[in-house]
């Protein structure tokens, strides 16, 4: 297993907003089935990094290499716009912090889940509905509400619906931006448990941006710590949190409530 090739390889990635550098010379790799957390405070550049590596924001420098299902390595920012969009609909998922950014308000919960299946060619209405129902079950949503609009759902339910919508096409890599922020603590716990189970069962690889160290500890094999646009420390999650080396990581860990 140690000779496996990475699913995602980030090489010397950089991004600037005018004079201000948001990401500086960031390199890391991610292997199949691996969950990586990116932690740091607001403004550290972690969301910019996530947008650059998930095909939403073209980096100024560096490369994002992804290994497709066909074992081809593609340079995400060198392929065509349509090829990139195809990737984001099939092999990738993206879970937004605010579920409203990741859901369509004008169609039902079931259609939100089915949409990605249709995007990859599913046409049989009965099958799509059946799959949507199965996914509502998996994310612990009441299947009787399949025809309701997502706006009728609570924040925690919307977040679970967004996850179902992303996972229905069996992506191999999921990007998540603060997936538990803004949820009540009890709702957070349920969502985290769900994500932990899904990542294990489906062998998903994921990059999770979070400011919550407890989320990193629960979900991530490895953790990157970002400060002022740079990765200042990286390693095994429990090592980074229990024996932080960099001054900024020590400050971050010692400022957090026990995780």
């Amino acid at each position: 297993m140690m000779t496996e090739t990475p699913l995602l390889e980030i090489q010397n990635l950089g991004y600037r907003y005018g004079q201000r550098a948001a990401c500086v010379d960031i390199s890391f790799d991610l292997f199949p089935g691996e969950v990586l957390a990116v932690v740091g405070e607001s403004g550290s550049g972690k969301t910019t990094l996530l947008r650059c590596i998930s095909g939403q924001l073209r980096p100024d420098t560096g490369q994002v290499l992804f290994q497709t299902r066909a074992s081809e390595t593609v340079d995400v920012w060198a392929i065509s716009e349509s090829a990139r969009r195809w990737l984001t609909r099939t092999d990738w998922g993206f879970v937004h912090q605010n579920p409203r950014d990741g859901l369509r308000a004008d169609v039902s919960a079931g259609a939100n889940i089915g949409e990605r299946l249709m995007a990859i060619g599913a046409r049989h209405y009965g099958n799509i509905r059946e799959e949507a129902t199965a996914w509502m079950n998996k994310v612990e949503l009441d299947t009787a509400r399949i025809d309701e609009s997502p706006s009728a759902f609570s924040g925690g339910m919307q977040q679970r619906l967004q996850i179902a919508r992303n996972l229905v096409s069996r992506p191999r890599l999921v990007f998540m931006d603060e997936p538990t922020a803004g949820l009540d603590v009890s709702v957070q716990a349920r969502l985290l448990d769900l994500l932990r189970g899904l990542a294990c069962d489906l062998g998903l690889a994921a990059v999770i941006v979070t400011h919550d160290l407890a989320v990193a500890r629960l979900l991530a094999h490895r953790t990157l710590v970002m400060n002022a646009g740079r990765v200042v420390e990286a390693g095994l999650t429990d090592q980074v949190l229990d024996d932080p080396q960099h001054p900024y990581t020590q400050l971050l860990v010692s400022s957090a409530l026990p995780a």
Partner: protein
Amino acid sequence: MKNIIEINNLSKYFILHTQGGVNIPVLEAVSLAASGGECVAIVGSSGAGKSTLLKCLYANYRAQAGSVRVRHRDGWVDMARAHPREILDVRRHTMGYVSQFLRAIPRVPAIDIVMAPLLATGTEPDKARVMAQALFERLNIAPRLWHLPPATFSGGEQQRINIARAFAPQPAVLLLDEPTAALDEANRNAVVELVREALRRGALLVGIFHDHAVRSAVATRIFQLRPAGVPL
């Protein structure tokens, strides 16, 4: 017996950047080799670095110098330098760790916590369940608790879940940080039995046992640690 772990000149200090960069030396040039069938009891005064040594072995703490080699998949892995994925592979297949406290995960029932390391190494779910239940019975965990998350359990109950989880996959190396601290006599004896069984199957155990009765019942060797910076 051939060695399973070889610690060579391990040094560990903590630099506390938030405290003005103060340097706290904990381990200084510690060496220890041990083989299967041994139970090494680490002894030393409070602050001598006993838990730190176990954590360096598990790669929960990073070493500043020296090597911490563990026999894994017909080779050696230096836990002080290995890639995180390799460390996780060692933890999955070769090394178990009983910490002083269970880190409870919200909503996950006790039985799933104990089954998880078995499932991760490919044991069939039905078989894993039977193995977990057998350990619960030996450790006197009442069946009504099996399907509840341990967050609300007593300290002793949580500790026994922790022990069951570490012993279930029968790893070649088991690290025990005061495994019986919160346990009554009957449960201490159950743990002593588990340790002896692990020794009989050829496992290496390295542990901190403050309880003298437990230590003398299981230890085959005493390893004395002195606080770093204090002459021998």
